[in-house]
């Protein structure tokens, strides 16, 4: 089991620790509902240092990224980030990721912790043709997500740049918490705004401590992975391993917006044909009409009790106070307003397909 540079701090704060993607991670500190609300209304800090980081450099760096990712990375410029995915050769998804352009001919790929080795091997395979310089810097870098509507105001005193000027999915490399050359990125997985801060492991304790000092008057709190999941699900953001995987297509998953046929990429021909043909099933968002909580792998059934699909993510929404989820259903059940049922133990609970996000702020 690996630790992040902050594990001892989490344990001292009384966090409940769980194994996640090979790391010993805080799942909650005070309780998931209060942590969730802290991010929705104030500001909270997640240690997500388990995430993987690859640095891709050289004259062919962009060509390699264009080959392995589905979004059009030629639209990037220095200081811009882009959500994307790595399609596999058989119609599915290797991983979803964020691509940052750091400087000319240099890009940072941020991938899911559970997929670091798989992604590295996949990209390496295609790099034979491009020979870009690839470095897996995951072990040496930490990542803090400082999220919530008060994040900008709470963190402003820690940096000389104007945080309010960093637009969504843009970033700056600047001083932060007394450390030079920190990546301050206006990204996140919560839907409540804020930043993601990338720094070296040996710097992160100082950053963590200064972040909490600066945030004290804003009610800043540490937030665990359990609230990270409820926050992302209220926005309908996909979680790799739940909602997307090696067998789900980007179109089925609603990721057509990051699948651009302006360039050739892994499996692009087959994906273009799939788009042309139309989809058989789609990932939909649903709310339960009655009391109950949908969970990963529960069956979705029709009015007669026939299985029509599967729940990929589900929870009790802390903001809405009802059961919400994502799941794959045949296209005929995918329109907003469609009635489906979720099989919760012995009961089929009626549910309605809704538009994302669940949480509208």
């Amino acid at each position, binding site marked *: 089991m690996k630790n992040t540079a902050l594990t001892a701090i989490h344990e001292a704060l009384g966090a409940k620790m769980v194994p996640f993607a090979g790391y010993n991670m805080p799942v909650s500190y005070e309780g998931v509902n209060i942590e969730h609300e802290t991010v929705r209304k104030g500001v909270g800090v997640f240690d997500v240092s388990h995430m993987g980081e690859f640095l891709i450099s050289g004259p062919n760096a962009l060509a390699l990224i264009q080959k392995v990712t589905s979004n059009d990375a030629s639209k990037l410029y220095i200081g811009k980030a882009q959500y994307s995915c790595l399609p596999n050769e058989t119609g599915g998804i290797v991983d979803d990721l964020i691509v940052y352009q750091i400087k000319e001919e240099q890009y940072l790929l941020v991938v899911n912790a559970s997929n670091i080795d798989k992604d590295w091997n996949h990209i390496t395979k295609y790099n034979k043709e491009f020979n870009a310089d690839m470095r897996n810097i995951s072990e040496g870098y930490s990542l803090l997500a400082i999220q919530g509507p008060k994040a900008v105001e709470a963190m402003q005193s820690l940096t000389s740049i104007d945080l309010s000027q960093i637009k969504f999915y843009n970033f700056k490399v600047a001083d932060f918490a007394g450390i030079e050359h920190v990546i301050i990125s206006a990204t996140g997985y919560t839907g409540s705004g804020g930043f993601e801060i990338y720094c070296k492991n040996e710097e992160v304790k100082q950053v963590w401590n200064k972040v909490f000092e600066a945030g004290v008057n804003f009610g800043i709190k540490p937030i665990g992975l359990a609230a990270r999941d409820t926050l992302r699900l209220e926005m309908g953001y996909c979680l790799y391993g739940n909602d997307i995987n090696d067998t789900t297509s980007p179109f089925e998953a609603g990721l057509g917006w990051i699948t651009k046929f302006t360039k050739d990429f892994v499996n692009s021909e087959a994906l273009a044909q799939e788009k042309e043909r139309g989809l058989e099933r789609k990932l939909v968002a649903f709310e339960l009409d009655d*009391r109950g909580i949908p969970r990963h792998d529960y069956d979705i059934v029709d009015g007669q009790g026939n299985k029509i699909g599967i729940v990929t993510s589900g929870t*009790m929404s802390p903001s809405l106070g009802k059961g919400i989820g994502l799941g794959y259903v045949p296209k005929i059940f995918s329109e907003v307003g469609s009635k489906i049922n979720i099989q919760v133990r012995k*009961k089929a609970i009626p549910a309605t397909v809704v538009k994302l996000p669940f949480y509208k702020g």
Partner: protein
Amino acid sequence: MNLPSELKYTKDHEWVTIEGDVATVGITDFAQGELGDIVYVEVETLDETLDKDEVFGTVEAVKTVSDLFLPLSGEIIAFNEGLEEEPEKVNTDPYGEGWMIKIKISDASQIEELLSADAYKELVSA
């Protein structure tokens, strides 16, 4: 960890208190702490007669679903309906307003098999 000495306990982290032939059942302070924020308590077995160790309901925290096992054979004669609106009472008052069901005990000899507070404490500290 709060373990009132006047209650009986089970290895499944439930507490039991007995008045005449009626037992009141909930989950322990230790159990609610391990589960975290409880968001749903489902008991669909009201008025049913079940054997000891059968599943009488489900308690759901944000990330987990756990079965609830009947500590004593008998008929389930009451469910704490207050938990439908406020399942968090299981977290805030596990031995009081967070009670879950009442059982009309059918075999009083099973009471002896329940654990004392000390025996339960030993179990969870092991």
